[in-house]
C-alpha cells in the first residue's frame, strides 16, 4: 500500500525527501532527533570522556585496561557514526558543551570513590547497560519505518551488547570469583568497532 508523502517541489532546498518519507511512515522526526542527540551526548560526554579516566586507574590490570580502551574507542566511533545522521534529519548539536552534556540520557561514568577495580568495572557495566537501553529505544522507534537510522542504531547496539558481556565477565571474575564467559576474544586492534566504523562494516 502506498504511503502518502508531502511532495517536495523541484529545486526546493528547505525540505528533504529523505525526511518526509520517514515522517510519512510514522516517525516523529523531531522526537527522533532529540533521542539521537541524547544518545550522542551519552556516547561522547557520559562514556568516551569518562572512560578515558577510568582506564587510567586500572593499574595492574593491563588486560582490563585494553578492554576498557576498546569500549572507549568504540563509543567514540558511535558518536562519529550518529552525528551525521542528526544533521541529515535536519537537527543540529547544541553549540554549548555543558548544554550538550545535560542532554545525555545516561549518567556520566565518573571515577568511583574508591577507584577499586571492582568499582570501576561496575561503573563500566552499568554504563553499557544504559547504552543498550538507549539504542534499542531508537531501534524500536525506527524499525520498519526509517531503515537508515535503524541500521546505524542496530550496528551500535551490537557493540554495546558485546561491551556488556565483557564487563559482566570481568566483574563476575573480580568480585564474585565466578566464570561467566563473554564469548568474545580481544579485538583485532584497539577500538576496532567491527559493526560501527563505516569502513569496517565488512570485517572478516
Amino acid at each position: 500500500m502506498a504511503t502518502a508523502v508531502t511532495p517536495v517541489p523541484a529545486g526546493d532546498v528547505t525540505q528533504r525527501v529523505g525526511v518526509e518519507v520517514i515522517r510519512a511512515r510514522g516517525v516523529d522526526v523531531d522526537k527522533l532527533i532529540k533521542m539521537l542527540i541524547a544518545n550522542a551526548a551519552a556516547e561522547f560526554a557520559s562514556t568516551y570522556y569518562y572512560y578515558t579516566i577510568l582506564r587510567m586507574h586500572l593499574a595492574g590490570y593491563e588486560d582490563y585496561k585494553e578492554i576498557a580502551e576498546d569500549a572507549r574507542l568504540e563509543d567514540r566511533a558511535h558518536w562519529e557514526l550518529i552525528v551525521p545522521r542528526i544533521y541529515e534529519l535536519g537537527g543540529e548539536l547544541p553549540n554549548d558543551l555543558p548544554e550538550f552534556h545535560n542532554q545525555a540520557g545516561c549518567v556520566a561514568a565518573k571515577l568511583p570513590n574508591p577507584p577499586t577495580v571492582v568499582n570501576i568495572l561496575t561503573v563500566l557495566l552499568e554504563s553499557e547497560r544504559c547504552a543498550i537501553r538507549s539504542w534499542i529505544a531508537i531501534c524500536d522507534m525506527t524499525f520498519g519505518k526509517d531503515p537508515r537510522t535503524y541500521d546505524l542504531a542496530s550496528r551500535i547496539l551490537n557493540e554495546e551488547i558485546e561491551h556488556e558481556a565483557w564487563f559482566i565477565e570481568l566483574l563476575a571474575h573480580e568480585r564474585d570469583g565466578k566464570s561467566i564467559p563473554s564469548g568474545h576474544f580481544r579485538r583485532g586492534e584497539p577500538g576496532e568497532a567491527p559493526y560501527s566504523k563505516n569502513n569496517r562494516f565488512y570485517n572478516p
Partner: protein
Amino acid sequence: MQNNEAHEIVLETPEGERSFYCDRNEFIWNAAARNGIALPAICHQGRCLTCAGRLLDGTVDQTSSVSYFDEDKEAGFVLLCTAKPLSDLRIRTHEQWIMRRHRRKIGMPAPYS
C-alpha cells in the same frame, strides 16, 4: 508479595487505574513490571526522565536516582525506575514531557528535550 514491608501503589495511567503492592526495598517500576504493567523507561538510573510520574499522595525514597533534585520533589515529580515507597502511594504516570518542560523552565538538565 504483600507483607508488612510492602505498600499499596495506585497508578493513574492513560489506560486507567492499576494497583499492586511494592516492597519497601523494591523500585516501583520493577514492581509494576512484575505485575504486568508496562511503564516507559530507558536509563533505569534515574537520569533520563522517561519514567517520570507525578506523586499525588504519599512519600517515596528517591535516593537511588542519579539525577533528582529538590526542585523536582517540590514540583511533585518522581522517577519510578529508581523510587522506593515509604508509604502507600497514588501516582500519575507518563509525565516525562511535563517533567522535561519543568526542568528546562528552571534551567536544569532535561535529557531528550
